[in-house]
């Protein structure tokens, strides 16, 4: 029992389950799933479908954070990839053609991959702090997206594109399959190969890893490429959802929600040990919370207030200080600061 409680996914899972339970009690329809024309519908299904862009971005972010980095540019990359895809479809003679849409998607995701590689180059090769390196693209990216769409919101009518976000496959939303494929891909790459442990090694101690012969540069560069590529796919899903390329609104604040999802899932922002399952749960918590807020009749514009409290709650739960205070209040003995690991000194105590 206590071993379960100490597992690092314990709190995230409990929070998600609690959130779903509260919703189910408050509105039984929340857990109802109806079948229409062989396709499943319901609030839970919506959560799974709508979470696809955030899921992709958060998975990429997890890998980047594990290398001790951060990718602030994901929202801008989404905007660019959406703009590229829609501009190609809009410019083609047959926007409804599956081939056209496929070409548009492949090109836009490739563009996103290149943008990710650019971030990776700045961080891994030029060794610029990740926050600033990705800030460059975060600032410039939306500008580029606006230039691609000529400053307008490009809209198209294209059934194949609409299918990406709104279509169904085997009764389930197609976007869900994209999410699951991304999760599976990342999990296989990181945990079935040695990439995961090497990524953690680089994130915990880059110099020691280099001297041990780990290809740190390649690993860091790869992380940003993954993040960029996934953000590109997320950008396509987003544009498919609204059937438009909106350079300003696409992926707005998504970098912050993605970071929040990673942190909710128990991965530390200081890099190193990471949890893919944790991130998946973190994304679902955020999406369920969004749904709850909407249900409460709160305007979605006001929802950031809730997230502010979520962030505060989460960091308080994770803070050692709170445990100390709690222990003292429950009659525990006076505390000691743990022997601190000072820079470069052995913990001789």
């Amino acid at each position: 029992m206590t071993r379960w409680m100490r597992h690092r996914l314990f709190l995230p899972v409990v929070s998600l389950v609690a959130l779903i339970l509260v919703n189910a009690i408050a509105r039984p329809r929340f857990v109802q799933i109806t079948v229409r024309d062989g396709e499943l519908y319901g609030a839970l299904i919506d959560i799974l479908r709508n979470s696809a862009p955030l899921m992709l971005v958060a998975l990429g972010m997890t890998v980047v954070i594990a290398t001790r980095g951060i990718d602030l540019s994901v929202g801008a990359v989404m905007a660019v990839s959406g703009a590229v895809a829609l501009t190609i479809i809009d410019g083609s003679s047959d926007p409804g053609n599956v081939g056209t849409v496929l070409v548009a998607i492949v090109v836009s995701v490739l563009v996103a991959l290149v943008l990710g590689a650019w971030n990776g180059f700045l961080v891994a090769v030029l060794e610029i702090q990740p926050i600033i390196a990705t800030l460059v693209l975060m600032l410039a990216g939306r500008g580029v997206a606006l230039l691609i769409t000529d400053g307008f919101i490009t809209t198209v009518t294209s059934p194949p594109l609409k299918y990406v976000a709104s279509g169904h496959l085997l009764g389930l939303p197609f976007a869900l399959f994209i999410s699951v494929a991304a999760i599976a891909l990342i999990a296989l790459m990181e945990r079935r190969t040695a990439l995961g442990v090497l990524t953690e090694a680089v994130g915990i101690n880059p110099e020691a890893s280099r001297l041990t012969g780990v290809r740190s540069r390649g690993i860091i560069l790869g992380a940003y490429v993954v993040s960029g590529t996934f953000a590109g796919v997320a950008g396509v899903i987003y544009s498919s959802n609204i059937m438009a390329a909106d350079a300003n609104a696409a992926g707005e604040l998504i970098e912050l929600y993605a970071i929040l999802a990673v942190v909710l899932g128990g991965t530390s922002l200081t890099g190193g040990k990471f949890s893919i399952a944790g991130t998946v749960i973190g994304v679902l918590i955020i999406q369920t919370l969004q749904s709850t807020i909407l249900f409460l009749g709160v305007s979605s514009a006001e929802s950031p207030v809730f997230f502010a409290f979520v962030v505060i709650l989460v960091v308080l739960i994770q803070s050692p200080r709170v445990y100390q205070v709690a222990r003292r209040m429950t009659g525990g003995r006076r505390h000691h600061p743990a022997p601190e690991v000072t820079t470069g000194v052995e913990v001789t105590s």
Partner: protein
Amino acid sequence: MHTSTGDDQRFVVEMSAITIRFPGVLALDGVDLRLRPGEVHALLGENGAGKSTLIKALTGVYAIDEGTIVVAGEHRVFGSAADAQSAGISTVYQEINLCPNLSVGENVMLGHESRTVRGIDWRATHRAAAEHLASLGVTIDTQSMLGSHSIAVQQLVAISRAMVLDARVLILDEPTSSLDREEVDRLFAVVRGLRDRGVAILFVTHFLDQVYEISDRITVLRNGRLVGEYPAAELSRGDLVTKMIGRVLDDLEAISASAERSVDRSVTPVLRAESIGRRGVLDPADIDVYRGEVVGIAGLLGSGRTELVRLLYGADRADTGTVEINGERTKVTNPRRAIERRIAFSSENRRSEGIIADLTVGENIVLGIQARRGWLRRVRRAERDAVVAEYMSALGVRPADPDRIAGELSGGNQQKVLLARWLATAPELIILDEPTRGIDVGAKADIQAKVAELAEQGLSVIFISSELEEVLRLAQRVVVMRDRRKIGVLESATVDVDGVIDFMATHDMAAQGAAPAGPDGARSEGSVA
């Protein structure tokens, strides 16, 4: 147990029966420490003996569970470093606790600047800082950035700062571990000056020579308990070591045979580097290592010893010279190249360049193999467990739990884990830079014995250590370095510690006297052997 002779003297600090518990550990168990004004008092013990904890208890970093601290006749409980400082207790830490981004003068005066209604008076502040520095015999531009000065100067700046705080007690926590001989002399001159002014100095170090050079009294701790307090003049070196480790150390004697073993140098060397160097870092130097040979590098910190091996390993890029590995010309431009050529390198900075603190011991050990194979070919579980178990028992890693987080191990055991990581990759040549620094005597002996054993089995080793005894005990040949260049090679069977020191000194004079002809190092190569 106590041989305190001066009970009539007033103690400036009297810590009695100090006990501190950490979760699951009794860090200090009823320890006493008494400091008299105007004495240098050495605090000694192995790693984990409780030296740092005792210092942190005195300076208010840790709260004490039991016991009392009396400073100048008053019972005190310090809540922070600032509290302790205002009571006249200042500490100079091993890793300089100053701000490299601020000027020297500001570091001396920070928090005590001269102020007027218009804010800080920088002119007066720098003047005061210069006076404080001058009283310790230091004359440097107080407006220069602290970070632009050597560690030794920074240390003196830290001491000046303590004097600004009007310290009655000065704690020096391993102040000499990164200083060369001249710098140590300069520091000791300052310390003696302070002692004569009546300051009580608590000196923590691993260097026993220095203890006898400067200390009046010695307090020894072992496993969180007090062993005793002794006048330095009445405690022999052998007794001191015995008290520190609690057993007589004869393991080390057995190792000394290593140096006398003969090595076949008629064959192609495993590694031969010719005039390898880097501008501003290392003058071009030659070095070769044969199969089964231990080549020691003797030299002070900053002599270029670390720089040389980093160039050999490709950790830094060489801009001159050639390298042959097993007779084949090759370029080692990065660590991966070196590893492919079966060279391994264990850095002197265990924490920042060696151990991956948050990974387990097992993961740390297989990391070397894994990095060699690349990310696509994962080391399988069964293989991993076998390798980890083999090397953990061979090196005696404690605790013997591969799933323990590596950062929680003691320094000596972390060093063993690093050694295991490299040995698991089956290298032909292993470069060990200060593998025994800052670890306890027991682990030190284990590591030396292992190195000797491996060399006998055919592994080539380059061994760097600040302790010349250790180098001479292990190595067949010793490369001597000074001032960023190689000054010669000695056969260790023919010299002793004094001989090596003499060689450094005489060469220095020769270099000053005679006009240099041709590249250094090449001239005196093998001349003594």
